């Protein structure tokens, strides 16, 4: 689809005149075994309409039953976002007709969310911290997935027919809603990305969601409005729906800021509406008008009893919470003694946990970093997988490192040993044995190779005899080449100097 390109101001121009106000609704799909209100499996990627029970299809006569694990997940998310947990909360029906919603209402929460009044600190790359207030986190169910066939837009308008897959219908969702975020200024796009990244990290760390944005496990609706600098009153907002990658969140917020600024500059009011994000053009297009008077005819779900929590249950769940990601990072950096830059690289490479495990298995922080940021990251990049997915275990690194430290192999040989281990040839020691990779430590064959190298480069030999000890590298290189790398370079150097009668 060719999007109608709206007029935009440059970001800097927009920032000179306006202050952005943000707000986010992030939907997190839980990874419970079964759905929110039925016993159907909660699984991604299965044959359409196979993970369904009569409840998920909204057949006549069915009734929902709340998934207790989903309630616990909701409470954990609430606690991780420093929310208050409701003592008693209700489900409500949100009524609207749409074919991806089998009952033509979504079972959600309205006036009484399970978690409310929270906040999280978001740290930007340069260390600036913004506190984002969380209005609420509530439980609801996902809709099915529509695929519109025919037509050019992939949208329902103009489609010849539409296919619907109800496997996703009823998957537990937690919707996390922020309060308006004021004061981010030009950091707004960056903050947007960092906020969604933080939510994703928190729910992943809690183990309550697979948190894979490409699968829609975490979906963001981004609200943006602008107000002229100095004005208190918020401007009219737009809601860009389903922005489903971190980068897209940043770009969508930036684009909407620039678009709003152009519209406001032209003296036209902003239309309150939903917007669609287009990754290809990095722009948004108009969705449907959305007013605060959208009438979903909410009323308390009469088929479900209230969810009642108690102090003991909440405290038990609180005690089970894992260490928050931000605190964990601070602790690990201090423990390992990495510089800010080193640590940021580790985090960005996604190997922090691997390094932690490897250190625990018995190597130094420096050695763990050398392996995970060096050889393993290099291989992961080549294979286009995450470093942790290569099958390199902390124990393997410990063994390889022990072989190096004992002088049995060198760094270069260790890569061959790793190849062998990953190819299933056995333990590092077995690979060394089978491939004959041990460093040559018998001086006899080395001296032979040294004599050969000296004879091949008599001029260099003369230089060394004449006191230019730094020239010894060329001879060492020749020896290493002759021994196919299996020599201990330090020992070779020592022997060359001995041979030439020069003090090292």
């Amino acid at each position, binding site marked *: 689809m060719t999007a109608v390109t709206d007029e935009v101001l440059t970001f800097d121009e927009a920032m000179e005149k306006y202050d952005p106000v943000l707000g986010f609704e992030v939907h997190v799909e839980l990874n419970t075994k079964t759905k929110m209100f039925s016993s159907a499996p909660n699984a991604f990627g299965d044959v359409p309409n196979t993970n369904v029970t009569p409840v998920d299809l909204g057949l006549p006569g069915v009734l*929902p039953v709340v998934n207790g694990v989903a309630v616990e997940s909701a409470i954990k998310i609430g606690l991780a976002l420093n929310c208050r947990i409701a003592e008693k909360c209700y489900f409500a029906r949100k*009524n609207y007709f749409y074919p991806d919603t089998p009952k*033509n209402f979504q079972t959600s929460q309205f006036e009484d969310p399970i978690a409310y009044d929270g906040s999280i600190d978001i740290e930007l790359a340069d260390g600036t911290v913004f506190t984002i207030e969380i209005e609420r986190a509530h439980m609801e169910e996902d809709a099915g997935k529509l695929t519109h066939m025919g037509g050019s837009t992939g949208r329902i308008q103009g489609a010849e027919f539409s296919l619907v897959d109800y496997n996703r219908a009823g998957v537990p969702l937690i919707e996390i809603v922020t309060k308006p975020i004021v004061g981010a200024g030009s950091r707004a796009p960056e903050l947007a990305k960092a906020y969604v990244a933080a939510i994703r990290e928190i729910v992943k760390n809690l183990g309550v969601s697979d948190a894979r944005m490409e699968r829609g496990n975490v979906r963001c609706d981004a609200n943006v409005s602008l107000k002229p600098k100095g004005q208190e009153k918020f401007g009219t907002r737009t809601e860009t729906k389903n922005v489903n990658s971190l980068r897209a969140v940043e770009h969508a917020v930036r684009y909407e800021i620039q678009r709003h600024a152009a519209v406001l500059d032209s003296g036209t009011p902003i239309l309150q509406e939903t917007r669609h994000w287009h990754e290809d053009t990095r722009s948004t297009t108009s969705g449907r008008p959305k007013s605060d008077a959208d009438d979903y*005819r909410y*009323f308390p779900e*009469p088929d479900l*009893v209230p969810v009642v929590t108690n102090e003991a249950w909440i405290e038990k769940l609180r005690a089970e919470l894992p260490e928050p990601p931000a605190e964990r990072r601070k602790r690990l950096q201090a423990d390992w003694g990495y510089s800010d830059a080193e640590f940021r690289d580790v985090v960005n490479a996604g190997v922090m946990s691997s390094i932690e495990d490897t250190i625990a298995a018995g190597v130094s922080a420096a050695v763990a970093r050398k392996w995970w940021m060096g050889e393993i990251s290099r291989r992961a990049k080549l294979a286009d997988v995450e470093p942790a997915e290569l099958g390199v275990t902390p124990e393997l690194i410990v063994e390889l490192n022990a072989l190096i430290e004992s002088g049995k192999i060198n760094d270069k040989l260790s890569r061959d040993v790793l190849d062998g281990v990953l190819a299933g040839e056995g333990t590092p020691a077995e690979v060394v044995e089978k491939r004959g990779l041990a460093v040559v430590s018998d001086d006899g064959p080395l001296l032979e190779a040294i004599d050969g190298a000296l004879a091949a480069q008599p001029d260099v030999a003369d230089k060394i005899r004449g006191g230019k000890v730094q020239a010894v590298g060329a001879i060492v290189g020749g020896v290493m080449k002759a021994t196919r790398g299996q020599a201990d370079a330090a020992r070779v150097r020592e022997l060359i100097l001995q041979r030439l009668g020069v003090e090292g």
Partner: protein
Amino acid sequence: MADLIHLTADALAQKLASKEVSAVEATQAYLDRIDAVDGAINAFLHVNTDEALLVAAEVDKARTDGDTLHPLAGVPIAVKDLIVTKGQPTTAGSRILEGWQSPYDATVVRKLRAAKMPILGKTNLDEFAMGSSTEHSAYGPTRNPWDLDRIPGGSGGGSAAAVAAFEAPLALGTDTGGSIRQPGAVTGTVGVKPTYGGVSRYGAIAMASSLDQIGPVSRTVLDSALLHEVIGGHDPHDSTSLTDPVGALVEAARMGQVEGMRIGVIKELQGEGYQAGVLTRFHESLELLRSAGAEIVEVSCPNFRYALGAYYLIMPSEASSNLAKYDGVRFGLRVVPEGTPTIERVMGATRAAGFGDEVKRRIILGTYALSAGYYDAYYGSAQKVRTLIQRDFAAAFEQADVLISPTAPTTAFKLGEKLDDPLAMYLNDVATIPANMAGVPGLSLPGGLADEDGLPVGIQLLAPARQDARLYRVGAVLESLLEETWGGPLLAKAPEIAGGK
């Protein structure tokens, strides 16, 4: 086999247990009766001949083999067509579900199958249980066996008429505002609305979730208790189902005792609007209970006067949402209009063609009542009234162990008489609705025939939530006292069914 079909369920069960009668004989007798009279009554939308006989044969074989069987094994039953059944159509009395078959059984149906009760078929009802006369069925009205020109009550007119016409010894009904009790009253049968949550609603097509309740329909109080014990109890598929055990209901019905009990006459449920013959029979019942040693006290439930109004906000509100799923997308009728068939137009055309007038009326009412700006005034206020009604009941039950009233203000009215006057139709449920609003159990039993028209009058007993046993205890006594005065069951006075074979 005329004798067989006139047996009570309890008596039939005993004859089956003693092998005096086989389940196949009993089932066949009822199927023959359906064949003979249902052309005139139209109680059944579907007759389940083959499966019913198959189950009956299984029972007979099991009995020959000496297997342990449920006491009601082999006793046939009819099921209101609002309750989903595998292997048979379920229509809810609506065109929009014509030809639809459920892939799953309602919990109560699973229980009937577990007890090996042959299911005779599915009974007629007002569309989606919306009505008090069964005239709102898309498949034609059911007629009252006492007078074929009169209504059998509603919405469960089919179940009540089937039992009254000896087409079934037992039936299942559903009661949202009186749909079991009022048909019981006007057909001279017994009907019970259990405590809300006492019987699983899983598989009962929802009209108003917070009010709907499945319950037994029978010819005697004891028979209802027997069926109630089969269908009652907790169901993990229904979050609103109670965890309490179902209770010793049969024992209560067999014991039947009122001496020393305080029976409260609800001041607001008599007098103006009540037919003279109904009140005469009602007062006779009070005298009988008094003579049996009960203390008759008067209680006041001042907020009951708002019950009907509040009910007609809450019920349509919930119904408007519950009925949204009938859109032609996944099951049931689909109407594709001429021109470009967008999803909105298909949904609209399907619902326009598939729903009858009364259903549309309530969907519109409910949609309006839930709308932004009206919610507080309508739905919100109605919920407050509901609380007040619950308080009235609580106060009344401090003064009385059970409450009593006529079940319906009048005897059966004529077919067509109130069809064009929805409000007059709604008023028929004025005495039954408060129980649904408060979730308390209610039982209707025959109180005799009204002098002016010779038609059955219903007496309603109400008990506190979870005290369903009290209904059976008092109901059994009143039934036996009344039958003494009549010289036998009231249904023995019913005319032969004209038009029957």
